[in-house]
């Protein structure tokens, strides 16, 4: 190999050395992926829509004089006494549909979106290894899984604090914690939800390798999440329930006890890791052999 000074590029600046050890860090594609994902308007629209949920909840409670105790989502009746409950309520109501919907959009778009725009072929001939691209794409989807529940929680805390008094929070175990610790619990629940969505993201990634129509992969991912939740409701399928990726989605109540019960967090994390492994492998098997014809 010639020294780099002998390889002057089209630009007249020294170019990458032929076949030499990679000079760019392996992280630059990840960085670029995050910038593209969080720089695009669609992602912001999704996050704004998620932020709108606590705002709607808070405003609805604020303008209706009283909430009859025991009606509506859990925590709803406590909001007027403590604004922080807006965050808990909003996170709870966004679990079945809104979070899976937004995650479905992002995860379903990962590979299919690039294929649809045609940029997939240019990424691959750049060259980006297919495995590396898959990992970076999944990392991007995970970053969104992190951002989405945090957005709901923080927007909830903010609007709750703006419209209602904020004070000590009474936990499910009856203990009382101060507001700053309650804010930490909000983040803890957001983390729980992020983990919960990891499996669905892996499913979305896999579905995304099957098609060049991103909307198809997005819709399929959302449908899968709905089906899983429906199956989880059928008592006849009791044996199946612990294997459904949505099984622990609403199990974050244990994080609202004193001391925190980590059982469901651990079971959930294990289950999600299993889904990530299985669907990650499927996505890998599909994508590394796929003809890129778009």
């Amino acid at each position, binding site marked *: 190999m*010639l020294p780099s000074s*002998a*390889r*002057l*590029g*089209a*630009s*007249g*600046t*020294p*170019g*990458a050395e*032929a*076949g*030499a050890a*990679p*000079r*760019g*860090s*392996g992280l*630059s*594609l990840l*960085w*670029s992926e995050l910038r*593209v994902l969080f*720089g*695009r*308007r669609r992602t912001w629209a999704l996050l704004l829509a998620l932020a709108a949920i606590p705002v709607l909840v808070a405003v609805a409670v604020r303008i209706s004089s009283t909430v009859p105790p025991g009606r509506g989502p859990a925590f709803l009746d406590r909001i007027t006494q403590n604004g922080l409950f807006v965050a808990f309520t909003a996170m709870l109501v966004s679990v079945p549909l809104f979070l899976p919907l937004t995650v479905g959009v992002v995860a379903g778009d990962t590979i299919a979106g690039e294929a649809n*725009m*045609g*940029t997939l*072929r*240019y*990424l*691959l*001939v*750049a*060259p*980006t*290894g297919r495995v590396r*691209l898959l990992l970076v794409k999944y990392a991007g989807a995970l970053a969104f899984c992190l951002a989405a529940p945090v957005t709901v929680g923080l927007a909830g805390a903010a609007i709750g604090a703006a419209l209602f008094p904020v004070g000590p929070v009474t936990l499910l175990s009856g203990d009382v914690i101060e507001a700053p610790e309650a804010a930490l619990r909000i983040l803890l629940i957001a983390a729980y939800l992020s983990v919960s969505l990891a499996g669905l993201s892996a499913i979305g990634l896999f579905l995304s390798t099957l098609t060049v129509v991103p909307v198809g992969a997005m819709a399929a991912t959302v449908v899968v999440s709905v089906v899983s939740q429906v199956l989880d409701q059928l008592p006849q399928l009791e044996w199946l329930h612990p294997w459904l990726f949505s099984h622990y989605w609403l199990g974050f109540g244990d994080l609202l006890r004193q001391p925190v019960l980590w059982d469901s967090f651990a079971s959930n994390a294990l289950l999600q890791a299993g889904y990530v492994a299985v669907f990650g492998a499927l996505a890998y098997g599909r994508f590394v*052999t796929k*003809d*890129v*014809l778009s």
Partner: protein
Amino acid sequence: MTGAAGGRGSRAYGLTIETQGLTKRFGQQLAVNDINLAVPPGAVFGFLGPNGSGKTTTIRMLLGLAAASAGTVRLLGMDMPGKFQEVLPHVGALVEGPAFYPFLSGTANLHRLDAATRHAAPATRKARVSEALERVGLGHAAGKRVHAYSLGMKQRLGIANALLSPRELLVLDEPTNGLDPQGTREVRNLVRSLAADGTTVFVSSHLLAEVEQICTHAAVMSAGRLVAQGPLPELRRSGTTGIRLVTPDTGAAMDVLARLGLFPELAAAQSDGGVVTAALAGNPAPEEIVAHLVEAGVRVRGFAVERESLEDRFVALTGEGFDVAQ
């Protein structure tokens, strides 16, 4: 230009692109059928063929985007797709038109694609991107979002992407598609200057005239098969020559030519005369033909010996008619 873009002091390989028995099957259809490409280093290689003849499919296999149903590919002397990590950093490509993130600017798009490869030095990224944009005349539109680009601007951006790093091989699939005459000329000049630096250029096109001016070699595809391949002069030589006669006395002229053993055709007829053409096969010599014509009282207004254009040859190889091959 400074140093050779493809300037390895000595190339370690005999052919820049070499395929053996390369085949791609889509269901029942053979999109690419057993082709043996041989592109020598430094060549500007025109890859010709009508729509649907398998050019893009071949290029996809060359670059490892699609797996071959049969056959092998070697690029820069290394096996593809096995050695893509070593090969592709030295290959710039435009495949089936440009494709970009419409919501990003031209510059941001190139940054993204450059970040995709670990072989490109991040330190020089900015300089290389703006240099490439300047090179294709997009400097002023670099900050614009790509969805606001015209077709030709996207095409130029695609070429800029292929030029981001120094390359040994450029694979350009219909690079002048959608370009204005100015842009077409610039692309031609660009290809020439790159070739002068030692870069091998593999350029596909269905417009022969476009390629004819810049290519040193060519190959012709027809319905998935490679029907001709070689240096351009050689391909030209294998074509036939003919005469072209302008005269008011077309009838008499055709009689004379027929008597000389030629097969004249009336190429154009007007009220005051017409054009007669005939293929030449060595005998009689053109000057003798003119002598015979004049002797017979044919009023010769124009007479030319024409080599069959590469275009005619192209049509002869790929078949006439507008329908794309199945």
